[in-house]
């Protein structure tokens, strides 16, 4: 297999509140021999909120990000579902609407850039599965995760709308997603089957509709707990932030104690590939997770 090389759009959280996401992603890429070039020029994707204020501006900024991957001639990879959604939505809008593409390019020309539509936009999860291959990952597992029942939490923005994502997510069906389950399986972990795996975590209304947000997270976390999960794993740092950081508040709203570690997808892979404790960064979690490193290496 020729060496895989991707342009990484880190997104904002991996550079700020979830440094463990960036370090574990880079550690996994390093272990698997995947070359990563970080798009240092990239800006925020708008996180579905800038889009509410000014959809056109969000398209311009996302198109600019993709331009830098196009300049390198590489696929742009994301490590956040919401970055994936908003980048893919802009790509789809520009690739299918020549009038909008011309309007956006008119703005980009002012800073010497042009959006062409030549780079794919893909979440790292699907690069690992569809391009690197589960069998190849399986061959490199140093620390099998056989001690753990792992609840996959897919996160909305990688699976819906399927029409947008199906060209880049291996045709995952949003009602019966399988990619994370298969990845857990390849790492020798036990995937937990539970109804909430493809549901919403409520992150996006954390500020303005707090009760809704807490209930949605609570439903998902308790469903995982009730199905004997030892941890939840998600490819989205926004799901991670909501589900890891707010467990105390969620417990109050749900009337039941919720205590379960929530890992980023690359942290789980890094753990199985034998990356260092520092690279995996389990100590950056609000809900204590650092014991998992020792338990995995028992």
């Amino acid at each position, binding site marked *: 297999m020729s060496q895989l090389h991707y342009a990484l759009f880190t997104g*904002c*959280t991996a*550079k*700020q*509140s*979830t*440094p463990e996401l960036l370090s574990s992603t880079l550690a996994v890429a390093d272990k698997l021999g995947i070359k990563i070039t970080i798009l*240092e*020029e990239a*800006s*925020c994707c*708008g*996180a*579905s*909120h*800038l*889009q*509410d*204020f*000014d*959809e*056109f*501006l969000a398209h*311009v*900024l996302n198109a*600019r990000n993709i331009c830098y991957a196009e300049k390198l001639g590489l696929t742009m990879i994301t490590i956040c579902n919401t970055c994936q959604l908003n980048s893919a939505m802009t790509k789809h809008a520009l690739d299918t609407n020549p009038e909008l593409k011309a309007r956006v390019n008119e*703005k980009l020309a*002012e*800073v010497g*850039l042009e959006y062409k539509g030549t780079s794919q936009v893909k979440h790292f999860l699907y690069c690992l599965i569809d391009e690197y291959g589960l069998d190849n990952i399986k061959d490199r597992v140093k620390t099998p995760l056989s001690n753990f029942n792992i609840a996959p939490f897919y996160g*909305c*923005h990688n699976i*819906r*709308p*399927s029409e947008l994502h199906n060209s880049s997510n291996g045709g995952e*069906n*949003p*009602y*019966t997603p399988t990619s994370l389950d298969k990845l857990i399986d390849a790492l020798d972990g036990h995937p937990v089957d539970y*109804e909430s795996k493809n*549901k*919403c975590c*409520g992150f*996006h*209304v954390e*500020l*303005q*509709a707090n*009760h*809704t*947000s807490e209930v*949605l997270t609570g439903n998902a976390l308790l469903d995982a707990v009730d199905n004997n999960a030892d941890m939840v794993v998600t490819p989205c740092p926004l799901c991670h932030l909501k589900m890891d*950081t*707010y467990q*105390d*508040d969620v417990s109050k709203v749900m009337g039941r104690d919720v205590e379960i570690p929530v890992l980023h997808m690359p942290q789980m892979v890094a753990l199985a590939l034998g990356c260092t404790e520092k690279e995996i960064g389990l*100590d*950056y*979690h*609000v809900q204590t997770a650092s014991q998992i490193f020792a338990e995995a290496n028992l």
Partner: protein
Amino acid sequence: MSDRRKVKIKAFRFNAETDYLPYTKEYEMEVGKDELVLDLMNRIKWEHDGSFSYRRSCRHGICGACGIKVNGKPVLACKQNAIELLDLFNNDITLEPQSKKRAVKDMIIDKSDFWEKHEAVKPYVVADIDPEPKHETKQSITQFNALLDSDLCIQCGACHYACPALEVNPDYLGPAALNAAFRFSIDTRDNASIDRLELTSKAGVGVWDCVKCFECAEACPKEINPIEKITKLHNMQFEQKVAKRNIATKHAEGFVRSIKKHGFLDEADIVVYSEGYLGMYKHMKTAMKMIKAGKIHWDDALPWVDNVPKSKNLDEIQKLIDISMTNKLL
């Protein structure tokens, strides 16, 4: 007959007048490759149990009566191929009403909440009509195209009963009513768009309670993508100066402020900017836990400390914001 598949179909059964709790019944049948979920329901009623109840009418994907769920997936029974569903769910399917808690009899639900929400947004053109017009009220192709596909809604309820925000907050208008609000607010013949934008900008009721899960986009059998229209309504509220300064609107426009300064979002600043310093007391406990874990730093929220990483070529981003922004900050 070889391409017929013998399966057991499960169905949710409940009669609100006689049953204390719902139950599930199994029906064995052979399913052909061209059969629809509606055919399975007809088969249950005609060949197994005449009391099995569901709504149906046009059989052509137009009346919106036969919306149900299968294993949680919203479907229009007269449009959804049965074999495709059996393949998707490994031959194990359960027919369910769109909302179990609103079930009246089997697949039939009390849809009054759906119609109340619809009515609230005035789903019709509000205009002074000349009873004896000299000619038709014409619209240009551009004016018509602005409706996008919102006019195709058949009020089947698939998106409404797929919406998790509505499930938690019954006051939320939900995707179908918001799609209708967009449909008539963007119509150039209509005079009530400001009323609709005001209603749909209300906290707890309108667009700001959308959780952005895209369940509605996935659910719609007419492929309307209601959340696209919800985003348009958000933008229209700023364009028409209906948006008031509140935590939700400041959170949306706060992204411009952050991106202009850093390229990235300033995660601490967006919370302070949206909530205001007085509102920050709500977040102190969480902030302390995040500081302890090293997720944020004690000085992140101080306005004179700038810890945020900067995008390379930030000047490009700043220039693009200046020349591309179509809405004004509140």
